[in-house]
């Protein structure tokens, strides 16, 4: 991620009509935006659509951005909202029961598929968590945002963020530990 001053300068250039500056911002935050959108939506194609919506929505709102604050949380708030809106519109949230083979008890994976299986399990476990909880844990453990920043992104109190991260981690760490045990 770029520094706050760097981001602020790119935002100022974009507002002044510099298309390339916006391109640098997209380049810089694309991975993060796509992961956060995927944490909300689950489906990677929907997530990319939402991340794109988020970037374009941010582009037209750039004049409202307060350059004294970090750009990342401001953008992630827009992306997370775009993903939530898309989920509501498409009603993509389905209370799908976990596939038993993903939770455990399935055949022992071979070495090549181990990593991909962990990914599958984690995605399935994330899907089980409430939207706010999975978004909070991804923002904290993957993207490195502070509790206070996540509170700003999700529009909830900091204490609630801490609680959501705690509960999400408890579930995901159990799954991770089980997977490591099986992989031995």
């Amino acid at each position, binding site marked *: 991620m770029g520094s706050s001053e760097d981001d602020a300068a790119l935002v100022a250039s974009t507002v002044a009509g510099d298309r390339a500056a916006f391109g640098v911002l997209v380049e810089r935050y694309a991975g993060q935006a*796509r992961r956060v959108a995927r944490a909300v939506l689950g489906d990677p194609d929907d997530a990319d659509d939402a991340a794109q919506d988020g970037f374009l929505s941010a582009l037209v709102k750039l004049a409202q951005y307060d350059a004294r604050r970090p750009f990342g949380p401001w953008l992630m708030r827009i992306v997370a909202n775009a993903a939530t809106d898309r989920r509501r519109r498409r009603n993509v949230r389905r209370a799908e029961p976990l596939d038993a083979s993903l939770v455990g008890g399935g055949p022992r994976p071979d070495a090549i598929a181990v990593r991909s299986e962990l990914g599958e399990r984690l995605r399935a476990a994330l899907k089980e968590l409430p939207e706010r909880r999975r978004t909070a844990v991804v923002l904290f453990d993957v993207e490195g945002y502070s509790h206070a920043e996540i509170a700003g992104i999700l529009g909830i109190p900091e204490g609630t963020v801490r609680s959501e991260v705690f509960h999400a*981690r408890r579930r995901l760490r159990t799954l991770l530990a089980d997977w490591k045990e099986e992989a031995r």
Partner: protein
Amino acid sequence: MKDLPSDFRPDPELGAALRSALEPKDDHAAFVARVMARYDQALDRATIPTLDVLASWFRPGIAAAAAALIAGFLIGRAVLTPAPASFDAALAPLEGPGLAALVTAQDPPDASVVFTSLVEQR
């Protein structure tokens, strides 16, 4: 819930596993190009007033018209209503048979004459 010291720091192991699980498979550059392809369209759409924008103007417009109507009614009523009579004017005796009879009579007035003159003053 009790916070552990590690709860205030990202968990690198869990973070790496989640990152790997959520990492998009598609090309990063392709996604950037896809967003940039809609750059002009997004800005154009933002500058052209859409029906939504016009609809958002409609409600304040109706409210302003209603406020102007009420203000006009109140001002008009204030202008057209005659000013109340002064206190002296209200108490001044009026001309009338009752009053004349009371003033010109030689004898003390009958109670009905006094009453009539009072009623006429109102």
